[in-house]
């Protein structure tokens, strides 16, 4: 079951990679693969058990898979320390502003939709 799901995931990624080279060079192969799988699920209308198992177990270990690329930061320690304050300031400020804006906007839109339904 797990292997069959894994096969579908790998197949989607391989197709995505082929499409990336052939047609859409600005989108990474795995992302195209994800869109393909999403389109397939929309057509099918449900998630099969093999796919549910495979994606569930892969996503459960996603943090582990992210460790090796994250370690790559050791190769860029100098670049980061050179721009440290610019980076820290931009990250913190933009995060605070955008989190507040996103919440405020969604709340406003929900209120408006509710008012319209009531009317």
């Amino acid at each position: 079951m797990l292997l069959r799901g894994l096969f579908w995931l790998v197949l989607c990624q391989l197709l995505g990679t082929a499409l990336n080279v052939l047609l859409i060079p600005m989108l990474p192969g795995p992302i195209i693969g994800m869109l393909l799988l999403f389109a397939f699920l929309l057509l099918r209308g449900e998630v099969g058990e093999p796919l549910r198992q495979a994606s569930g177990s892969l996503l459960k270990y996603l943090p582990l898979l992210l460790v090796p690329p994250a370690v790559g930061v050791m190769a860029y320690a100098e670049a980061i320390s050179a721009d440290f304050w610019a980076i820290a300031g931009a990250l913190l400020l933009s995060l605070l502003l955008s989190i507040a804006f996103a919440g405020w906007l969604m709340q406003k839109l929900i209120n408006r939709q509710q008012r319209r339904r009531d009317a």
Partner: protein
Amino acid sequence: MTVEWHAAWQALTHHPLFGVGITLGAYQLAMAAYEKTRWVFLQPVLVSMLTVIGILLACGLTFAEYKDSATALTLFLGPATVALAVPLFVNLRRIRQLFWPTFITLLVAGVVATALGVTLAWAFGAEHIMLMSMAPKSVTSPIAMLVASQIGGIAALAAVFVMITGIIGAIIGPSLLKRLGVQHPAALGMALGLTAHAVGTARALQEGEECGAFAALAMSLMGVFTAVLLPLAILLWL
């Protein structure tokens, strides 16, 4: 004898599985520490990263060598990214009612979050390669890393920015939003998932089922939109 000790040590640290071994070990230590304390700063990826870097420095290994010996793990990042389609699909079906508020917030606030980060970093004088690594900071790391390398940034840096953004967002987000009068669980969830991706989603789940579902939706959609639109936008803009 000392010569043979040295040879054995060399064989061990340069074995093609050495990277996988220390990563698995570090990750389990980090997970154990996180589960015991539940402390937000002890994000498993962050702690494992620091542990692995420490081991590599102690053994005198470079990142390039580690990268080669950890390929067995990184190969699965692609299929894991594809697998994100499943939670996206499951969530999309769940949330039909609030379709338009969700869609508009996603587009407008998503653009604001991305543009604000890049503009501020640019205004503060960061270099181009830093800007490109910072652009996808609000999306979940696999997508952010792919997108960053696609638009001329550094995948590893993007992962670090993503992690920092997520952790700070999860710590400050909920109280900030409540102070601003944002009460609807869907709005709380959207804001957390949109800006603070997986870490924000985990935080949103603590607020309740609906909040968590919207956070997961916002995270997945923000990821897809960023992956599709950001490289296009950069391509047109530069």
